């Protein structure tokens, strides 16, 4: 009995800790959703799958040192990354291992604008941003 209560408590504690930043992340996502439906009235929600595709695709048009997001964030979002231009280590981007991710709109916007320009050679759309955050929130 005591053991099963303890197990239940541990199980409950894990998702709770991971959710600490969730309200702020949700606010960022709903902001992007508003922008996405303004751009396209047919907008019907974000997709983790499209987000993963954005993350893994090797694009043409950006800086040759960074053909894809994985050039710096690596193939495995749960692991540490390394800036392909400067060598500086980057903390994991998956929310499950780094719950602070995507919780500060100014930070998020700053990096989308720098990183999309570097990889795609153009800004990311609100749809792409929402898809990306949705993908990482599930990682």
């Amino acid at each position, binding site marked *: 009995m005591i053991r099963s209560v303890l197990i239940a408590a541990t199980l409950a504690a894990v998702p709770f800790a991971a959710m600490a930043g969730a309200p702020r992340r949700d606010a960022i996502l709903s902001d992007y959703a508003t922008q996405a439906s303004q751009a396209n009235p047919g907008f019907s929600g974000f997709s983790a799958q499209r987000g993963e595709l954005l993350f893994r695709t090797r694009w043409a048009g950006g800086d040759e040192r960074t053909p894809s997001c994985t050039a710096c964030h690596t193939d495995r979002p749960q692991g540490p990354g390394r*800036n*392909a*231009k400067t060598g500086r280590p980057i903390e994991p981007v998956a929310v499950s291992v780094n719950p602070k991710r995507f919780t500060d709109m100014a930070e998020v916007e700053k990096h989308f604008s720098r990183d999309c320009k570097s990889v795609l050679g153009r800004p990311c759309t609100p749809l792409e941003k929402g898809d990306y955050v949705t993908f990482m929130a599930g990682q």
Partner: protein
Amino acid sequence: MRSKLPLAAAILLFAAPLRAEEKSVPAIADPLVRQECGSCHMAFQPVFLPARSWNRIMDELANHFGEDASLPPDKAQRIRAYLTANAGDAAGGGWARRYMRWVAESGTPLRITANPAFERKHRLPDAVWKDPKVVTKSNCPACHTQAEKGWFDDD
């Protein structure tokens, strides 16, 4: 670093010791500079370049080594003030003097790593530069684990 970069470590061990007061450069005291100029690479200590270089870097942030590193005017202003006040030609002594010796009177070099004072201490085997943890010469902390604190003398 020591296990991953054995060559660099071995060379550091044999490096000639400096006098104590010349062993380190002042660490960056302003947290805004550390944060904004330390997000893509280590925030480089201002003693390695003259004030006019820092002014040029701050003027050209929108095209910074192929990156857009623009900042809002209030932040840029404060960072510029810190970097120029603590620049190599303002500080004098130690490493500042050694680096400034090679900079022409009106020169505005953008790279610390192109200074002959840097090159002289960094004639390292190719294998060291090709280590995947290094990536580029400007990645000081890959070899100098205390670089952000101003320590480049790793013994």
